[in-house]
């Protein structure tokens, strides 16, 4: 029976894969069906996971095993229920409290973490001695790194109009950004092709047994 279920599963997977691929020809009922099934399964997966990964171990289990010792957990439980009030127009305003707490927490943590990681550490990483590198290529690279970072940051300064000589670093910054976008495009091609290879490997290998 297990063997049959495994085979059925592979054929089901192949059916869904080909249904999605059929969109490349044109939109059709098979694609629409597969798309909605995907949405349904995805939503159910999230819900089941939330129940087993968060609600039960972090909330209900603690309240059931030691209610008096975990009384304080009634507060986040109440805030969570207040969040659900968003569903009804008359009680939507109640959901602002838990949302405000979540947004406030995230804003505070983001401010600190981005300040350290994305600003201070990145500026420090740019403050290098470019001539301390071992090879000529690395020295040139370090100089490009410093100039590119400064010109790139200068490009994003929009508080004053950049004219004449003041537009020159901005222009250089754009060139560095173009190089980065070209590199990103190259990597994007790599990423997308990889995903297709995975599906074809399934169709040709697991389903048709050609590889």
């Amino acid at each position, binding site marked *: 029976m297990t063997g049959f279920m495994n085979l059925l599963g592979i054929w089901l997977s192949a059916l869904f894969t080909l249904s999605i691929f059929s969109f*490349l*020809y044109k939109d059709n009922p098979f694609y629409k069906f597969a798309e909605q099934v995907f949405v349904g399964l995805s939503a159910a*997966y*999230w819900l089941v*996971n*939330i129940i*087993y*990964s*968060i609600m039960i*171990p*972090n909330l209900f*289990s*603690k309240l059931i095993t030691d209610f008096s010792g975990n009384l304080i957990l009634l507060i986040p439980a109440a805030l969570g229920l207040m969040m659900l009030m968003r569903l009804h127009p008359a009680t939507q305003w109640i959901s602002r409290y838990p949302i405000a707490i979540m947004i406030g*927490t*995230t804003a505070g*943590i*983001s401010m600190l*973490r*981005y300040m*350290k*990681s*994305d600003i201070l*550490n*990145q500026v*420090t*990483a740019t403050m*290098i001695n470019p001539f301390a590198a071992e090879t000529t290529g690395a020295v040139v690279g370090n100089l490009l790194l410093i100039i590119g970072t400064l010109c790139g940051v200068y490009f994003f300064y929009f508080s004053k109009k950049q004219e004449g000589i003041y537009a020159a670093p901005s222009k250089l910054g754009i060139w560095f950004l173009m190089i*980065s976008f070209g*590199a*990103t495009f190259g*990597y*994007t*091609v*790599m*990423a997308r*092709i*990889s*995903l*297709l*290879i*995975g*599906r*074809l*490997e399934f169709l*040709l*290998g697991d389903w048709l047994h*050609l*590889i």
Partner: protein
Amino acid sequence: MKISAGLERRLIYSILFIAVALPLLIPIGWKTDISGYTQIAYDLVEHAPEGTIALISFDYDPSTMTEMQPMAEAQIEHAFKRNQRVIATALWPMGVQMAEEAFGKVLLDYPDKKYGVDYVNLGYKVGGMVTIQAMGRNLREVYPTDQGGTPYEDIPMLNEVRRLKDIGWISSLSSGTPGLKEWVMVARDAYGVPVTGGCTAISAPGFFPYVNEQRQLYGLLGGLKAASEYESLLGRIGSATTKMDAQSVAHMLILVFIAIGNVKVYVTRRRKAQ
């Protein structure tokens, strides 16, 4: 002969399909160089002492598993090879299943590894950066049980781990947010734990600035090629390496499409000028 836009589009799709399928059916066996970023990520695991407890965060879903799953399998295998112990967590819900699949595959070659002693799957928690920060203070508070409901105190290998600082190295395999960026910001920059990781090729260019003298990131596995490089360093032909032939052929095809597109536009412009 004028080809309609619709037919042109389908022709491109068909050619791409064939170009990717053929190398899978008839493997070529091309070799690739190892990049510096992959070497740094490899060295972090290689130089960690035996018995180190590592944490691998599975922050991706099946949509990117072609790129990410080989990285996960390679890193788990590397850790097991070095007799290190692995904690699996996930900031994406599907990451839990991805972790189970990766362990399942690697354990076929390491049947002596015991759950709870050599590896454990703690499961998924929502919250991203906030959750990682909470893990930095008290891991048990965030994960009162593992994925199967076993209490934290009853898992032998977790007796030595109270918070993130007790972990030797962290690897985040991520395809979006929350993921590698959050682990760098909190685990590395706030708590000082070495962080390495992998990401889809699309996000890789954005993570390279973290590989710097401050060691915000210890190397980076960016995409399928990096996974293939890691497999080469481990000395095996894994699922990433077998796909590289198809990857190479498809890349050349994309360049051909770009060239034909530009030639077509150039010819059209010249005709209009005349």
